[in-house]
């Protein structure tokens, strides 16, 4: 049976891991939220400060989902995959890069002008070497996420991260879940309906 074994959401200065709040209080800005999560959950990476905001958000939320799972000790790297999506692609960084071209274009901004770089950052940190996709759609496409991940898990992968990581200007939103093979237990079976249910019942989306 395929199961959803963990999930994390972030929006409006607050994050929830498996339905429970990560921070004692909500914070005002994207930077404050990321900084507090990084400190509280001891998320370390030498390149973190150089990442764009899309990568910082995806990297942080994926790290929260994966902490304590021992996933990379249990499974072969080529059996671990990731499928993320959003609506603005890398536009948040594209605009900053465009602004930099007025003077000397910034190489470090340029490398983040693709949305799939967030996948690379997560895969490098966590030693994921399996298949990966990044989809761009107007809103979370649960059918596409489910069909893609279930095909990969049924045929090639042991575990797969999936979800939605969106950043544009002041607006941001993340929802990342871990799907893997599990025991026969109806709780959070990996289905399109359950992905949708978890997304829709997260406290953040109901405020």
């Amino acid at each position, binding site marked *: 049976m395929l199961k959803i074994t963990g999930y994390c959401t972030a929006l409006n200065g607050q994050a929830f891991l498996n339905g429970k709040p990560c921070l004692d209080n909500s914070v005002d800005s994207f930077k404050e939220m990321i900084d507090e999560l990084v400190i509280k959950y001891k998320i370390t990476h030498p390149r973190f400060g*150089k990442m764009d905001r899309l990568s910082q958000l995806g990297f942080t939320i994926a790290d929260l989902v994966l902490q304590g799972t021992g996933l990379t000790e249990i499974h072969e790297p080529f059996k671990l995959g990731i499928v993320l999506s959003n609506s603005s692609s890398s536009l948040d960084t594209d605009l900053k890069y465009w602004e930099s071209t007025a003077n000397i274009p910034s190489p470090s901004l340029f490398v983040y002008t693709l949305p799939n770089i967030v996948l690379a950052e997560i895969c490098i940190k966590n030693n994921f070497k399996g298949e990966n996709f990044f989809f761009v759609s107007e809103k979370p496409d649960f059918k596409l996420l489910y069909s893609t991940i279930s095909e990969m898990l049924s045929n090639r992968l042991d575990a797969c991260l999936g979800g939605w990581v969106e950043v544009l200007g002041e607006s941001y939103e993340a929802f990342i879940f871990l799907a893997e093979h599990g025991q026969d237990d109806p709780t959070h079976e990996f289905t399109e309906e359950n992905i949708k249910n978890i997304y829709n019942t997260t406290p953040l989306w109901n405020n």
Partner: protein
Amino acid sequence: MEQLANELKVLIIDCLKLQDTKPEDIDTDAPLFGDGLGLDSIDALELIVLLQQHYGIKIKTAEEGKSVFQSVKTMAEYVSKNRK
């Protein structure tokens, strides 16, 4: 030269977003790449931009870049000779 080296350390930290690194943490003679600050190829490009923006210096070849970006000391010596 020491003042220029310190100025470069501040610029490098800011330009390369080296969180948790202070100017005094950077050894003037230590390699910038590999074992030293552990910079990568994108950082090398940012250092080229840094020299152009702040000192009007253009690095023209990869070989020239290799010798200039060995350490903060070699950068300071190069800037001192070539700044505009």
